């Protein structure tokens, strides 16, 4: 079920919040992905689900949007009583602790405590799992699998890093296994390591070349760390592989869905189209597209309907009001054009969220976002959200 043209995208999303187990929120940077993910989590909890919002982004965005200063790798319960949740509804939030997840994985799959110690103490492992870019994606999928099996939650809303990295993230299971796979590095590193010196027989000529290349560029010590690392992982590949393929299945399952978030700036929508294409190539179930911060001039007609007392303003003020309006309209026109293109090219009706009256960074404001997303059905604070749509 997706927000195909002609369907009400808000209803599609509401249905997903009640039915799905995993919602992956993706899109390029700065479009309000995290805010959307948090608002969805809150709305799901209000509808009686036990929701968890998890962010992969190493920045503190999710904490900020929830009005918190910090989140950790452990789910933290949020107090949502004042939003009148349905029976049993809860909301938790957490951020991904890359190092902790990786360590946990090693602990789970290491064949012996000796192997475990070797890996955890390996220099390459320490730097790779903690500091280097890319590890977040490797571990995100792993965590997702864990969380999907966690009985405390029946819905996981996953906030992903900006577009290009989100693609890394989709490919992470394959890449992790490719990296750790026997057929990649291990096959030429292992003989090297066992021989303990440079002049060794390697299985293939290409392997020998690649080995020489690695040695030349990275040096012997690094090579030793690397070999140790791969050797230490021996016996764990099958576990990793098995989990990677389960993540793969999990994301293509009907209980999971992707939601693309964008804003109406033409350059950002172009990026959303790219993302849409990639999701389709990967056969990921795309639910719909949320477009945040649509310029209010889009909804100009609403203002027309409010009857006002006819007043004549001073010409200087009048001129400035006209120029403010014209400026807004120029932006709105550009937005409208891009939105039309988005709809035609994706065949999906985007769910438009107007710019809010205030910056969204606490639960109350999130509630307003949710009210807008789901048609402002509930009373609550919906009034001011409706105000934003004016």
């Amino acid at each position, binding site marked *: 079920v997706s927000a195909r043209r002609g369907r009400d995208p808000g209803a599609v999303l509401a249905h997903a919040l009640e039915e799905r187990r995993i919602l992956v929120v993706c899109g390029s940077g700065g*479009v309000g992905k995290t805010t959307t993910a948090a608002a969805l989590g809150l709305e799901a909890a209000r509808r009686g689900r036990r929701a968890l919002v998890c962010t992969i982004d190493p920045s503190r965005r999710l904490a900020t949007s929830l009005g918190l200063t910090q989140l950790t790798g452990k789910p933290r319960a949020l107090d949502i009583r004042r939003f009148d949740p349905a029976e049993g509804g809860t909301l938790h939030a957490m951020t991904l602790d890359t190092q902790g997840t990786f360590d946990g994985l090693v602990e789970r799959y290491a064949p012996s405590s000796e192997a475990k110690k070797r890996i955890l103490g390996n220099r390459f492992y320490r730097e790779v799992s903690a500091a*280097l870019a*890319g*590890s977040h994606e490797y571990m995100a999928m792993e965590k997702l699998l864990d969380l999907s099996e966690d009985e405390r939650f029946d819905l996981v809303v996953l906030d992903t890093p*900006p577009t290009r990295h989100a693609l890394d993230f989709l490919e992470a299971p394959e890449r992790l296994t490719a990296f750790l796979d026997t057929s990649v590095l291990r096959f030429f590193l292992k003989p090297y390591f066992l021989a303990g010196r440079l002049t060794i027989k390697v299985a293939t000529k*290409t392997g020998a070349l690649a080995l020489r290349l690695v040695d030349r560029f990275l*040096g012997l010590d690094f090579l030793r760390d690397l070999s140790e690392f791969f050797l230490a992982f021996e016996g764990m590949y099958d576990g990793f592989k098995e989990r990677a393929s389960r993540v793969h299945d999990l994301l293509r399952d009907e209980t999971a869905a992707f939601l693309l978030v964008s804003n109406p700036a033409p350059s950002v929508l172009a990026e959303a189209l790219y993302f849409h294409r990639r999701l389709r190539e990967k056969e990921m179930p795309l639910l719909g597209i949320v477009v945040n911060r649509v310029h209010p001039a889009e909804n100009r007609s609403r*203002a027309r309907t409010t009857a006002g007392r006819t007043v004549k303003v*001073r010409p200087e003020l009048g001129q*400035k009001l006209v120029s403010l309006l014209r400026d807004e309209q120029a932006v709105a026109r550009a937005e409208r054009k891009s939105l039309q293109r988005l709809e035609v090219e994706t065949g999906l009706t985007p769910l438009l969220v107007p710019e809010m009256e205030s910056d969204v960074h606490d639960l109350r404001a999130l509630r307003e976002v949710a009210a807008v997303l789901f048609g402002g059905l509930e009373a609550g604070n919906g009034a001011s959200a409706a105000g934003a749509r004016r």
Partner: protein
Amino acid sequence: VAPLLEDLLSRRLVVLSGKGGVGKSLVGTALAMAARERGKNVLLVEIDSPVEAARYLGAAPVGPVLSEVRPGLFTVNLDPQGVMDEYVRGSVKLDLIARRILESPIYRRFFAAAPGLKELMLLGKVMVLEEERTGLARRPRFDLVILDAPATGHGLQFLKVPLAASRAIPVGPVGSNARRILALLRDPARTALVIVAIPEEMAVVEALDLQRTAADEIGVKARAFVLNACHERRLTEEQEAEALRLSARKAGGPLAPGLRLEEGLAAARRHMRKRKLTRFYEARVRRSARLPLVTLPYLFREEIGPDEVRLLAGRLGEA
């Protein structure tokens, strides 16, 4: 020339970082134009950017090929795999061998999977570009290189890679390159880290976070702060008061052909709200960042082109 711009333009490398969607690309283009207008040969480096800065200058996308989009103003959109391939080709002098390595699936998969390798290669390439010399006098080919770094979160990870790699790889050319890159980033005489944000909570929080982490964990001190997309005063104080009074009285009626007063007043209220946010975050950045700050205006335009870039370049010059 204004002090801040002069300060930035006297470096070899300006690294722009900030949350996604804050307009780093546009700020980078404006900075490049400002540099060009002051007679500098300037190179703007983007990384895997889907929509390139070149379009702001009315030029066609340049892709991974370094191109002179205006006299003395070059741009390139680096593709990580391409940079890595180039590195292999440059290191393995024998064509045949290089080709065999490049064609090997092992190499492809290693490159795709090895964490941090992409980032290291890209930063290495930026360093090589910075070091390029031409002519008999061996003058730098570029007076200034501007790097539009990936968004924070990952941008920070990006800048951390040389440090992590120099620790993980104690010897060999890759390790020593990592240390050279780190030295370049840390050298305030050669490199200026410029943090870009917009007047919004999350962008500002992340920007301040970036500033702190870059200093504490990587040893790179930010040089300047750019607050982009600021809403600047359009109405006088009296006019603002008047607009609020009229709104409270639910004033309406025709304003101009096709426009109604109530719409105009709603636009004025939106404008005032955005002004307020701009002022609030500007004050916060001044207080917390303690860095030279430039504010750039929000542009109400259907398309951003060379005129808009020039406008922002002018503003950078006034700072």
